[in-house]
């Protein structure tokens, strides 16, 4: 039994590891695939991107009022049914002649105009309700709660976090922008793309010195400008060191970061 279970567990482990190692080479090419989606994040201001909750709440406020005015509309709607009741009698008076039916068809359009005048009268009666509305102290607190409370709950459910929270990458980029002293003056800056692997502790400090990715290290060994760019990137990571803006509850997401420093957009600035 022990033998079987060991063999089975061994086989399972081998299978899992085999799957993992097959995916491993793909992970090496991953950075190139992931980098493009980050670009649009930079083009929009932080508030527009991640401060979602407030805007949604405003929409809800707009949505709630229509529910209240809705009752008055039904008040206007009831009159039409009586029109329909009024309309049937004429057909009873004219059972056979078809031309009269045509006349009746001509008549109904005029009738709807009359019912429209009738609802106006109930609106005059609503003046009392308008007066009630003028008493802002009592009606408002009573009316909004039933409609607004459920809406607020759903809004909070839709938003990821609170209104003040920043997206993880936003927070990191905002900090790195202040620390990265872009190497200027080098020819072909668009080629001086540096990748640095950063290891952080939970309090936002560097767990170990930042490391250049293999491709960057190789380029820096042969190209003086690349070496300068790599040193500038490492300096930026070190200067920014207390990464306090990163949310501690998402530590697993930012425990290890690969930062790609791309100076091509800084040309001419």
């Amino acid at each position, binding site marked *: 039994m022990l033998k079987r279970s060991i063999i089975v567990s061994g086989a399972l482990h081998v299978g899992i590891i085999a799957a*993992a190692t097959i995916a491993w080479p793909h992970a090496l090419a991953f950075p190139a695939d992931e980098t493009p989606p980050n670009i649009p994040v930079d083009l929009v201001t932080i508030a527009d991107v991640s401060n979602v909750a407030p805007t949604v709440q405003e929409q809800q406020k707009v949505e709630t009022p229509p529910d209240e005015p809705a009752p008055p509309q039904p008040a206007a709607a009831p009159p039409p049914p009586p029109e329909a009741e009024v309309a049937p009698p004429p057909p009873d008076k004219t059972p056979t002649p078809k031309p009269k039916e045509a006349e009746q068809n001509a008549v109904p359009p005029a009738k709807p105009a009359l019912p429209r005048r009738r609802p106006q009268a109930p609106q005059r009666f609503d003046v009392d309700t308008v007066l009630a509305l003028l008493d802002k102290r009592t009606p408002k607190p009573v009316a909004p709660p039933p409609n607004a409370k459920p809406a607020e709950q759903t809004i909070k459910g839709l938003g990821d976090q609170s209104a003040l929270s920043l997206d*993880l990458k936003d927070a990191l980029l905002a900090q790195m*922008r202040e620390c990265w002293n872009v190497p200027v003056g080098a020819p072909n800056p668009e080629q001086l793309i540096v990748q640095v692997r950063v290891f952080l502790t939970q309090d936002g400090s560097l767990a170990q010195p930042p490391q250049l990715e293999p491709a960057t290290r190789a380029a820096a060994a042969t190209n003086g400008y690349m070496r300068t760019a790599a040193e500038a990137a490492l300096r930026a990571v070190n200067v920014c060191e207390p990464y306090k803006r990163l949310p501690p509850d998402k530590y697993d997401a930012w*425990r290890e970061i690969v930062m790609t*420093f791309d100076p091509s957009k800084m040309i001419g600035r």
Partner: protein
Amino acid sequence: MARSDKTLLRRPWRTLVIAAVFAFDSLFGAFAPARAALQVRVDQGVTEPIPLAIPDFLGNPQAGRDIAAVVRADLERSGLFRSLSPASFIEKIVDINTPPRFGDWRTVQAQGLVTGQAVMQPDGRLKVDFRLWDIFGESQMVGLQYMTTPENWRRIAHLVSDSIYERITG
């Protein structure tokens, strides 16, 4: 005999399986964290002067003070460097051949440190040594030595600042 044969067969099996499991587990454990890295693309930064600490050179007090002053002026004039006030320095350099206390220089916000000495030689010539230290990398970036007549001290100071400029900016 039969039992002993079985046990002989079983043992290598067990050891093989257990060894394989441990080996793959250790491999898997080593690779797993590498995949979890967050990808961030930084394409905006600042263009600010790099703060450098350039204390007076050791050795001949007059020459050391003059050369350091010219190096500071040269680098600041480039617009790419900012010379930190010597009053803020925590560590007093006493020997340029021993690595500085990098932590002290990080505290004063220095990203680079220039240490040097200007010594009059018995033959009447002036010998100027200097080293440029990477404070965060905790390593030496440049180390050079010049020999010249004492009248040429200013020229040497310009050479020192040129080599620092070239090494940092590329």
